[in-house]
């Protein structure tokens, strides 16, 4: 295959690759010595996570950094995973080709949208140290591992392999490695600590990848360990076709020129999501084009007209052409429970609130916002909260101030939720960390550096809503804590202090100990609800019990409601009190009348959860007299839950239809030549463009 390298070579541009790097290092992630190291780790770790996810393997990743030459800042980086490994013949492709793989033409959520790939690391290593990168790969069907050194012939601008061979891959414990990949590379780089460091990158990666086991040995030999806290792998994402609302002129031109379809209507139906037969015809009509026009032969004017029809500027019957939303099963949110686990394993705290919004669509691109807030523990109370930003599970570590996700945080008045925020401006202060994750098929960045997300009103509003809801969770928690402390005090009063007063006074006066029930009712004069949520080791279930005491002098009747993690796949079992489902994740029990001095216990278990998934149950009540320890049911809140639930159901229905009404084809066709400038241009575009086909920097001459 004729690639760019060949082209370059033929033009005798001997320094092209080093120039390529030098000119573009800022968006390739190699603009400073410390960032170069982070980028190298990032590329290797992202690859490992992606490979494991695709092969449905629970990842275990070991990273080691050694300082080889302190004066010249030469560092050795070794990243080892337990992924499927790469077959020997593909190793050169993966490590020696720029833009290898499906990243640049498939529309789906992927980590790899954000980098140049591991090839960039190989290039950087070669250019700064002159050394090749050592790769060891073991696939499960072979008994030995493949080893090879991949380097770069800067004179010929060609990737070169050397020392190729096979060897036994023995692990430290004497057993043989089943499958996996190990990359060892030397590069000019600086190891740093702090907010922008390899450590922070791995820590953040671990938060959003709770299914991964990550070990890191830093240059001082210190071992950092982020354990796996769930056995659940992220859901496998489907790739989807682009939606007409999210397409740009260049991309449309390319798709048309590469099309082999004979009719425009067929092309529209087959290459886009959200375009039905009806919509295809209407789009053609709106653009004043014949449905039978051959896509490959369309003129620039026609293409522009088609684009305007896409965007609703050219209309059909006076209205923009209606199209279905794209399916959202191409997104892989982390999901609330796993965010909780990820955060709590990394940060010591007292409280976590999380929120995964229903998927949404902006300009034809499906996206989904997730937020998490972790509060209390050892975090400093007088400093700004730590902001943890992620796009498609990849940590964003630079340019915090200019990022959409930060702006969404700043748009909330956190004071009403119990955090300090001078003038209701900026990032709030307090012992907390806020996580924001944007999952999207088309992550838009402010610049080539790809560290800050570009403004988008819809996305900001969605993130803001998520944060408000999460804030309410925090406020509820703080209020509940206060109330619980009060309830605890009352119980201490009637269970310990009052009996002691009775006994002591009787002793001093030499009289019999009096009956306490009258005093207790007068002291409490309340209905009290208590919950306990505990993991049962034997049954592997979470046992919940709710006790309601009537310490008033009148009989009381209530409906008690409790939340439970239905969304996360839990099942409600052994629920002897019956009741009924009130909304997604909310169960209700209408209780019999509770006489003065009586108590009633509701108990049930939750199955399908892991230990630590569900540790606190909130209870609500319907009834006139306040229940201490429970919240009055806010019917609006129930309504909101039902709305979100309906959105989810609709989304699933829609995407279901989509899958049925379209067949998989077209996205990959043959690979036309693309020149280096265009790759640079496309890399440089803030958006991730989906050019089709593979293009290789080093051509097929490996």
């Amino acid at each position: 295959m004729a690639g760019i390298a060949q082209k370059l070579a033929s033009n005798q541009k001997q320094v092209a690759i080093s120039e390529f790097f030098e000119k573009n290092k800022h968006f390739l992630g190699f603009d400073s010595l410390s960032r170069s190291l982070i980028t190298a780790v990032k590329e290797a770790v992202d690859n490992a996570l992606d490979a494991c996810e695709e092969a449905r393997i629970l990842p275990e990743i070991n990273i080691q950094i050694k300082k080889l030459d302190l004066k010249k800042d030469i560092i050795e980086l070794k990243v080892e995973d337990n992924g499927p490994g790469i077959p020997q013949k593909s190793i050169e492709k993966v490590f020696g080709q720029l833009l290898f793989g499906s990243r640049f033409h498939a529309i789906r959520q992927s980590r790899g949208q954000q980098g140049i790939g591991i090839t960039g690391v190989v290039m950087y290593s070669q250019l700064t140290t002159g050394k090749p990168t050592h790769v060891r790969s073991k696939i499960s069907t072979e008994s030995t591992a493949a080893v090879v050194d991949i380097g770069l012939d800067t004179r010929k601008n060609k990737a070169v392999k050397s020392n190729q061979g096979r060897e036994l891959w023995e692990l430290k414990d004497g057993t043989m490695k089943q499958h996996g990949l190990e990359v060892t590379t030397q590069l000019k780089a600086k190891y740093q600590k702090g907010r922008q460091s390899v450590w922070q990158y791995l820590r953040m990666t671990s938060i959003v990848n709770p299914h991964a086991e990550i070990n890191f040995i830093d240059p001082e030999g210190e071992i950092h360990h982020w354990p796996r806290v769930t056995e659940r792998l992220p859901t496998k994402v489907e790739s989807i076709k682009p939606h007409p609302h999210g397409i740009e002129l260049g991309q449309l031109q390319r798709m048309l020129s590469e099309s082999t379809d004979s009719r425009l209507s067929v092309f529209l139906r087959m290459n886009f999501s959200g375009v039905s037969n009806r919509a295809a015809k209407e789009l053609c009509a709106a653009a004043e084009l014949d449905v039978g026009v051959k896509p490959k032969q369309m003129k620039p004017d026609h293409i522009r007209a088609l684009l305007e029809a896409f965007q609703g500027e050219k209309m059909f019957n006076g209205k923009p052409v209606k199209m279905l939303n794209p399916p959202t099963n191409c997104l892989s949110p982390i999901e609330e429970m796993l965010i909780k686990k990820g955060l709590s394993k990394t940060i010591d705290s007292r409280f976590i609130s999380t929120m995964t919004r229903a998927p949404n669509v902006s300009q034809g691109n499906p996206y989904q916002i997730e937020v998490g807030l972790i509060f209390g523990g050892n975090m400093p109370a007088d400093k700004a909260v730590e902001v943890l930003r992620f796009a498609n599970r990849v940590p964003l570590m630079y340019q915090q101030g200019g990022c959409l996700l930060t702006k969404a945080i700043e748009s909330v008045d956190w004071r009403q939720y119990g955090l300090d925020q001078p003038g209701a401006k900026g990032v709030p202060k307090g012992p907390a960390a806020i996580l924001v994750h944007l999952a999207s098929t088309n992550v838009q960045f402010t610049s080539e550096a790809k560290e800050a997300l570009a403004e988008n009103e819809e996305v900001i509003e969605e993130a803001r809503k998520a944060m408000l809801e999460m804030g309410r969770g925090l406020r509820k928690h703080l209020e509940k804590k206060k109330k619980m402390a009060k309830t605890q005090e009352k119980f201490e009063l009637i269970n310990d202090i009052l009996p002691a007063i009775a006994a002591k006074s009787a002793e001093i006066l030499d009289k019999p100990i009096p009956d306490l029930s009258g005093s207790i009712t007068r002291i409490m004069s309340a209905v009290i609800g208590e919950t306990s949520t505990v993991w049962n080791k034997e049954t592997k279930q979470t046992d919940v019990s709710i006790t309601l005491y009537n310490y008033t002098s009148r009989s009381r009747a209530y409906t008690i409601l409790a939340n439970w993690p239905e969304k996360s796949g839990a099942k409600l079992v052994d629920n002897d009190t019956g009741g009924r489902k009130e909304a997604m994740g909310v169960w209700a029990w209408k209780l019999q009348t509770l006489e003065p001095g009586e108590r009633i216990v509701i108990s049930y278990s939750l199955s399908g959860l892991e230990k630590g998934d569900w540790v606190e149950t909130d209870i609500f009540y319907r009834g006139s007299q306040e229940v201490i320890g429970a919240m009055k049911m806010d019917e609006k809140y129930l309504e909101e839950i039902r709305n979100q639930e309906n959105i989810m159901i609709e989304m699933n229905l829609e995407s279901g239809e989509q899958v049925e009404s379209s067949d998989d084809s077209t996205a990959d066709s043959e690979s036309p030549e693309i020149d280096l400038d265009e790759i640079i241009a496309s890399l440089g575009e803030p958006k991730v463009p989906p050019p089709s086909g593979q293009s290789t920097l080093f051509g097929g001459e490996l």
Partner: protein
Amino acid sequence: MMVQRFSSEETKKAMHSVVKEMYDKIVGGEPPTMTLPVRTKNNIGFDAKLGVYKYGKKRSIRDATSLGSAKQLLRALYVVEFIEEMIDAGKSSTLREMYYISESWGLGKFGSQNESNNLAEDLEIVTKCLREDFKLRPEEDGARMIGNLTLRERNRRGEWMRINARDDVGDSGYGVPYNVESEKIELLENDIDFIMAIETGGMFDRLIENGFDEEYRCGLLHLKGQPARSTRRIIKRMSEEWDLPVVVFLDGDPWSFRIFASIAYGAIKTAHISEYLATPSATYLGITADDIVAYDLPSDDLSKKDVEALNAELSDPRFADSWWQDQINMMLELGKKAEQQSLAKYGLDFVTETYLPEKLAELGLA
């Protein structure tokens, strides 16, 4: 006039009435309670018969509906039991000792020494007993005295010692013990014309060095700031038993006014025993607001807290007479306060040769 004292049996009976209130409430199906007078300046009034300020009729009920109050009630029971044990065993303890002993009271344990001091006072108020009846001693720092007066003090071995507070003491004077009741101290004789109570140690020592007590035939008493109960009690005893005038020489600031009020009219905290501690005939000698102007004394600006205190005093029934109202208002207008020792502006002897003779002459004491 002597204050009524309780016998051991009477003390126990008074305490049992507190316990009975709690017990009866529980039997009646109610939260147990303890009824106390309100202890603020809004509930003190002048008792014309006794000539001092006493608590009024306002009562607050401490009931066991909150954890804090319930614990207070339980502690009160433990204290009652502890006092009974001491009475029966013929022992006494300090308030601090009681605080530490409460370590073994489980749920009735005190959170701080302040809590135990307050509770002892609560019990005094409710039972009308004195803390001496409870066999509880304060840790307070008693006053020291110098002057030609003679008293008898029973020492640890139970022997009576005769002490002249001029001839039998060193430069630091006679130290007043915590208990100055007749079982401990007897006032024998004196050859003085009046008693002068002084706020600061520096001024007390200046007067002694200058021989003021002999020249002006007076007893000098160092208050050590806010005077302890025993200090106020011995001033009252000397004033009544020896029929001596008492003059009080303090700094010129709002806090000194309060010290004077506690000596002359009764302190808000101890208004239940004002007739036992207060000396209504005591006179405020200085430093007055007038003095700051008249003697052109070096002064400091009033702080925010000083102004707040002065304003509070304006509505305090003890400062309701026109002389005090004028003094307080004048100080507020001046915006200044002055220390006793600011008199040294005119030399070390100014206080004894000019200021005090002039002030005492106004009162007809010199």
